[in-house]
């Protein structure tokens, strides 16, 4: 459905990095209805790859294909009707209510001077219901907790009614309860709404619990890609993160779990 074809995009080294950031010759596919995890250490290019796939930045070379058509040939609004993005953290410059924030997701569906109508209000309500945030509708967004904010932003992405949703570290600053909640919510959206998901994350267990496929990035290149069970191995974790880890199937969780044991230096 969403296909990255030999993408290269470099930017100067970030703070504390020696090598330039970005991605080099990365190809990957997010199949329709799939949940793909994008993993890799800090500075390995996860966020850059997500931004490229969302069309927020233009690759130096390579292209992104959405249903076989290059993303670059479409307008921002057209792309926004197909791909929604949930950033790691959302901070508002001004106080908007939760409902107002969710209604902002309707932007690509409205004309320049068109006001939100009944249909937009209905979709916003539905998105609030599905993310369990309906009771927050009248609250000011900045007063919410981290987990609530993340669910509201996912609701806004749902109101955008895009078949693809890209999430950048959706659980990065959340407590375990909120992490589980977000994971369950994403599974639900994928199951009921058939939303195709790509999730960049540091949390290997979160990825293992959620994703059908993984892409492992190392210094801007694909180190491994494939079904979760094939990618999430002790060897790959050692090679990419420089960490010796215990990888085993947890019966109660129903998925692979990763316990980092010691740092060994990446090969």
């Amino acid at each position: 459905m969403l296909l990255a074809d030999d993408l290269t995009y470099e930017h100067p080294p970030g703070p504390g990095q020696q090598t330039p950031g970005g991605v080099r010759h990365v190809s990957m596919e997010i199949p329709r209805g799939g949940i793909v995890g994008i993993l890799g250490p800090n500075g390995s290019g996860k966020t850059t790859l997500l931004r490229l796939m969302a069309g927020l930045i233009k690759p130096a070379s390579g292209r992104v294909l959405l249903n076989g058509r290059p993303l670059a040939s479409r307008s921002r609004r057209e792309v926004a009707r197909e791909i929604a993005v949930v950033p790691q953290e959302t901070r508002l410059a001004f106080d908007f209510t939760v409902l107002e924030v969710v209604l902002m997701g309707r932007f690509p569906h409205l004309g320049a001077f068109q006001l939100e109508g009944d249909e937009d209000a209905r979709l916003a309500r539905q998105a609030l219901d599905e993310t369990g945030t309906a009771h927050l509708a009248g609250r000011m967004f900045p007063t919410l907790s981290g987990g609530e904010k993340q669910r509201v932003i996912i609701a806004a992405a749902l109101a955008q009614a895009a078949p693809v949703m890209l999430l950048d570290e959706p659980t990065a600053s959340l407590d375990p309860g909120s992490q589980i909640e977000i994971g369950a919510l994403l599974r639900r959206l994928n199951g009921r709404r058939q939303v195709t998901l790509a999730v960049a994350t540091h949390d290997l267990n979160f990825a293992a619990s959620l994703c059908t496929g993984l892409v492992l990035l190392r210094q801007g290149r694909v180190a491994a890609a494939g079904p979760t069970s094939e990618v999430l191995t002790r060897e790959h974790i050692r090679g990419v993160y420089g960490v010796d880890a215990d990888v085993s199937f947890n019966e109660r969780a129903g998925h692979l779990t990763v316990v980092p044991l010691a740092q060994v230096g990446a090969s």
Partner: protein
Amino acid sequence: MPMRRRLAFTVLTFGALAGAACLLAPLIGSTPLSLRRVFDGSVPFADNPDAQIFFVARLPRTLAAALVGSSLAAAGVVFQALLRNPLATPFTLGVSAGAALGAMLAIIFPVGLAFAGVSSVPIASFAGALGAVAIVYALATVRRQGLSTTVLLLAGITLNAFFSSVILFIQYLADFSQTFRTVRWLMGDLDVGSYTPILAALPFMLVAFAAFAVLPRALNLLTLGADAAAARGVDVLRTQRLSFFSASLATGAAVSLGGPVGFIGIIVPHLVRLLVGSDHRIVLPAATLFGAAFLIACDTASRTVMAPMELPVGILTALIGGPFFLWLLLRRR
């Protein structure tokens, strides 16, 4: 309340306030006027002193206050959204400092720029404003494609400081009467004398407001951040450019008409947000109308509280604005 009704309600309420201010302010002064006699159609204009004072002596000043107030308030809203910073003002990016430098030069080196009945000071200050806008924009776009709001902010603040010191330098060299005129200009003066300067500034303001009309929804989304706005379909660069140039144009035109009247561009947007929320589709028209009413009220107060002496309006707005600004700073989370 549905959006359409909220919008209509806001425009009607704030519009009535601005309209009432425009009608009532000219009645107040050394010669009190009666609204009935002013609009008494049975008396010819030539024999109606009330109408003459109203339309010839006082209305231009009121209209100038209205236009300067709405332009600065609306520009404040747009700059705050563009820079994603509630403490931004129309003067943050150096537009007013450029205008002030232009005005200083015109006062101290009179070379007769006067054109079509507009004296050289407003023309020079408008040119100075445009110059500052060009410098700030060039600096903010020089490093890479796109408009960095951080660089924009830094460039504006630096330019403000630089121009201010050039202004001080010029004032130091100038003779006493010229320095007094420049200081007086910096305090703001809405006594424009006739309709001509208003008509000269109006076209620029209208262009700016035409841009303001298409911006509000994109400005709402910019509140979420540039990437989040782009991901929802906003053409971020186009919105930023349009915001920057239109708000700068409104500011430049307002300052060349009435001088750098401070604090309107921050008090009014925040007061309006407290009343109507943050949706720019409501805030922008409300701030425009409320800005007009607010500056008319301040100007009326400034010419009456110490009558027959007149207090420069910029002093009054700063006296109200300073404490307000602090309050705003302290109540922020």
